[in-house]
């Protein structure tokens, strides 16, 4: 057995890390477990039963809220990608004096409490007369997600040499063909990851949805939130777990795309 320096520290830190991870995941497990609680009162465990899942999906309000969430998330993802991908590529390939201020705005968008953005959306969307429920949600969510997509794309583009596009031009490819055959395939994982993340963030969003929603277009998280008031039952837990499942799939797919074959840790995202 090879001798190792600082063994004690290592064990202590790794144990602490393991404990922290347990701390982080325990509540999620708790919710998943309790969603199978057959009893009337959610907090008191009676019996194992998947009934609530059926009841949740039967509820028309749940289904309609789910549809609203999905549609809004899709529109928002489209906006985020359409605006975020070019911005990310420009940040990587066409740096200049503009890069600093742009990134500053980007980080303001990321770091400002959603509350502020939500109020602003509410005021402004009413003023400009945008009353369509789905569009309001999509627009409100898109701000944050454009920033996310831009950062992901930038990280990916910086990892790839821009000489590749020059080489393609050198070999006779016109700009459009270079984009289709070189740029797009190489950026695809990042773009896809951006789609998935912006979809997921929009789907889970609470506070912007709360402020910009119109009667008749409520998202699933809003429905869950409103269900907290009357006595809590298992069907809400079931819905929450369903959303968790969807998010998980989105996350896993995004992570696989981002990390496959690339040595860069997530650190590349936060540069």
């Amino acid at each position, binding site marked *: 057995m090879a001798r190792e320096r*600082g063994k004690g*520290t*290592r064990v202590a*830190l*790794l144990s*602490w*890390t393991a404990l*922290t*991870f347990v*701390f*982080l*995941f325990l*509540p*999620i497990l*708790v*919710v998943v477990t309790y969603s199978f609680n057959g009893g009337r009162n*959610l*907090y008191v465990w009676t019996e194992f039963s998947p009934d609530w899942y059926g009841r949740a999906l039967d509820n028309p309000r749940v289904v309609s809220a789910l549809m609203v969430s999905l549609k809004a998330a899709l529109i928002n993802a489209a906006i985020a990608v359409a*605006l975020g991908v070019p*911005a990310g590529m*420009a*940040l990587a390939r*066409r*740096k*200049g004096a*503009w890069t600093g201020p742009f990134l500053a705005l980007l980080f303001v*968008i990321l*770091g*400002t*409490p*959603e*509350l*502020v*953005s939500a*109020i*602003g*959306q509410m*005021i*402004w969307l009413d*003023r400009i007369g945008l009353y369509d429920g789905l569009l309001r949600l999509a627009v409100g969510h898109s*701000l944050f997600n454009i920033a996310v997509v831009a950062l992901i794309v930038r990280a990916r583009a910086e990892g790839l040499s821009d000489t590749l596009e020059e080489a393609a031009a050198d070999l006779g490819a016109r700009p459009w063909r270079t984009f289709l055959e070189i740029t797009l395939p190489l950026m695809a994982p990042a773009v896809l990851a951006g789609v998935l993340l912006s979809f*997921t*963030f929009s789907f*889970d969003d*609470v*506070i912007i949805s*709360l*402020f910009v929603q119109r009667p008749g277009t409520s998202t699933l*998280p809003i429905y869950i939130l409103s269900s*907290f008031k009357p006595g809590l039952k298992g069907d809400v837990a079931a819905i929450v777990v369903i*959303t*968790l499942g969807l*998010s998980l799939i989105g*996350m896993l797919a995004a*992570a696989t795309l981002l*990390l496959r074959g690339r040595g860069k*840790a*997530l*650190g590349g995202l*936060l540069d």
Partner: protein
Amino acid sequence: MSRRRMPRWSPAAPALLWWGFFFVVPVAWIALYSLGQKPPPGGGAVTLDVLSGANYVAVTSELFLRVFWVTLRTAALGTLACVLVGFPVAYALARYVPERWRPGLLFLLVLPYWTSFLLRAFAWRIILAPEGALSDTLRALGLLSAPLSLLDSNAAVQLGIIYNYLPLTILPIFVALDRIDPALGRAAMDLGAGPVRTFLAVTLPLAAPGIAGGVLLTFILAAGDYVVPAILGGAKGLMVGNLVATQILASQNLPAGAAMAVVLIGLLGLAVLGAQAAVLLTRGALRLARGPAL
């Protein structure tokens, strides 16, 4: 590649315009609305005939000040707790976890943060429920004499904030530590510094900007949080976020809510500047204390 090419930033222009139109302008309107008045019922969202700072005066009422104070305190304590708990984790991930496992663990770390807000707060409602399993267990063990009453209090909110933002604090610290060239630590030890001194004199200062960034981000987002206090706080665990939401959504007093939001942004802005000043001052003080090298 033409001589008269479009400006370098042109692909980013759509995003810029979108942000300008849907973020910058709306935030400016918040400021404007905060100077308006709540109109009589049926008169729309706000009357801007007379612009005054009346709402700001209302903001300094006892209730609001108390809630602001609770908010800042909760956010600060929460951030501190996150750093204390999270720094060792970040350090372990950067230095002791094998390279192979890192992406996976980082993903697992961030996963709770990226799952639904509601899910996480919800989970704590179940765990902390007076009639729930944890409460029963603690009573059975004799640690509690009455049902667990953490819920619907500031304590529950504090716990929820810590839980919520822990991954968000760990990640920037990890990135900052990961960036440090391991050779620097070896060089310090080669020059005679023990592990503790190396950590204090080399590792920590180099990681400080990243740590500061993570701390600031956590603090700002925690201060503006709505969901955690809404679900776990009840009437006693109110934070600014809920107050603003109530003003705007329930009381229909948009100008008052806007004023509170502006105050919040202002306070957070001050926090950012204060943090930067603190960093500069600390650096200066340290230099002064050590004396010139030459």
